[in-house]
């Protein structure tokens, strides 16, 4: 193992033969923390120029935040800059995430969906949280729930998130609590929109009126979003795949042309 690790190091770290002993200790610590031999080698294969000691420091810090070795590796592979962060920076970010309700148990889940969570600028996180609270009027508990279940929102443009929320709230008439429960923000917008408009044009979905009433029983947001195409068509839309395929093409073209029109009228 030591041999393999040694080979993966950049020349500047192997020049000094006495380093061999230190390296041995370092590898042992990683094994003690639960890293397997392969994982240790993988860890050292990342950014060979980086000092061996730094790897241990970052890995230990991430484990303190509640990650397991496989999640640690996942983060480091997908978001290499984390390896260059100082212990202090990591601690601060850990604290911030804890405040947002993303501690131990949830963090594993979150980093798998949003590996850059540690390197994301703090401002970006704040902006997303502010958008949900101030523009979309979610409660802080709901915001935390969204971050836990859909951490990818942290990577999105706030204006896109706002538009997506408004679509669910105004166009589909879905309440805040159902938006949160359904994992809405994890679903691709084109899928949501084409399924909703398809149902609507088939007469099977209605935007509730001012009193919140509809003449048909709307399907739950969760089902609209997460059923497979096959089940969506069989259970909700009662349509053939052929019809739905043509519909998606037509809707995409409608949308494209609307955008063109908007652009043209802006030009005038």
């Amino acid at each position, binding site marked *: 193992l030591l041999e393999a690790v040694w080979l993966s190091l950049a020349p500047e770290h192997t020049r000094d033969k006495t380093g061999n002993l230190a390296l041995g200790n370092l590898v042992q610590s990683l094994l003690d923390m639960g890293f397997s031999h392969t994982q240790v080698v993988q860890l050292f294969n990342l950014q060979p120029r980086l000092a061996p000691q730094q790897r241990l420091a970052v890995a230990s810090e991430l484990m303190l935040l509640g990650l397991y070795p496989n999640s640690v590796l996942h983060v480091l592979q997908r978001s290499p800059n984390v390896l260059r962060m100082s212990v202090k920076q990591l601690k601060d970010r850990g604290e911030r995430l804890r405040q947002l309700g993303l501690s131990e148990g949830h963090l594993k889940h979150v980093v798998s969906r949003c590996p850059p969570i540690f390197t994301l600028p703090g401002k970006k996180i704040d902006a997303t949280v502010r958008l949900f609270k101030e523009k979309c009027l979610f409660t802080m508990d709901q915001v935390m729930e969204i971050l836990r279940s859909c951490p990818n929102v942290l990577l999105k443009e706030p204006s896109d998130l706002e538009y997506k929320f408004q679509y669910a709230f105004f166009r589909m008439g879905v309440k805040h609590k159902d938006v949160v429960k359904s994992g809405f923000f994890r679903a691709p917008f084109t899928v949501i929109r084409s399924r909703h408009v*398809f149902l609507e*044009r088939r*007469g099977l979905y209605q935007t509730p009126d001012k009193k919140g009433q509809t*003449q048909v029983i709307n399907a739950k947001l969760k089902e609209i979003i997460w059923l497979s195409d096959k089940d969506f068509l069989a259970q909700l839309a*009662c*349509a053939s795949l052929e*019809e739905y395929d043509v*519909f998606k093409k037509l809707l995409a073209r*409608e949308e494209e042309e609307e955008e063109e029109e908007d652009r043209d009228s802006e030009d005038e």
Partner: protein
Amino acid sequence: MNYGMQFGPLWPSARVSLLSEPKYGALVNNFSWGGDVVRDLQGLRAADFIYAAQNGPAGAEGPAPLSPNIQCYTFPKGDICRFPPARPDTVGILGYYLMDAASLLPVLALNVQPGQLVLDLCAAPGGKTLALLQTGCCRHLTAKDISVSRIKRLHGILHSYLPKAARDNVSVSVEDGSNWEQVERDVFDRVLVDVPCTTDRHSVMEHDNNLFTRVRKKERQQLPMLQMQLLVAGILAAKPGGEVVYSTCTLSQLQNEYIVESAIKMAETQFSIDVHVEDLSCFRRLFQDTFSFYAECRVGELVLPHLTANFGPTYFCKLRRAQH
């Protein structure tokens, strides 16, 4: 009136189609000298659905009673391509006319034969008039419409699609076709009565219950009456033994089967004219690859729009006036 009840499980598919982009067919202009019109259309991978139907398995049952020489190209089922605008030939005549391909079914059903006198009672803006002329069979075609502005459009189409010589045996006039006193009686071999109707494509709105709120209410109430008067006028204008096709672009039973049945009764009681409904069920077999037919009409045939073939709605029913 609730289409959900009328069409049951077929309604959602029709509804989403009405609210989505319709499909067009390219009616080939046989008067154009371009020569390569057909080649261009084939190059787009469109096919003449009328030719295909007659030469397909359903066509093998023997020649169908169709108006001849009409060619209309459409894209295959499920294909959402559009035709480019038609180009003029060397003398400025356009090569094809874009229209709802299902609108040709009433014209095909009229089964115009060489040398016949034909009346197009509600002709403007003229898509079906143009199709009738493509048959090359009309000894004379009389086209009427009540609307001055729409008649102007009809003239425009005739000018863009017909050389002067071909326009000579067409007479166009602004007239109220429902006026029984004025119609020439017992004259025409073939009469097309393509009545004004509620256009479902524009009126299906968010809620089925206010399906027609957008249409002015007074007009709506008078519409069935007008439709029946027009059809009776068409029957009166036909020769004994002549054939009349009634058509609409609505799914509404009240404006379709019900009008046909009332007009037949009316012709009998008021004018002692016997009229028979001709069976057009062969159309359903013949054109099943291009259109989605509704098989349950009491009389006549109805094309329901379907996303994979978003043509229609078109209702058509053929009547034959008894010999005496």
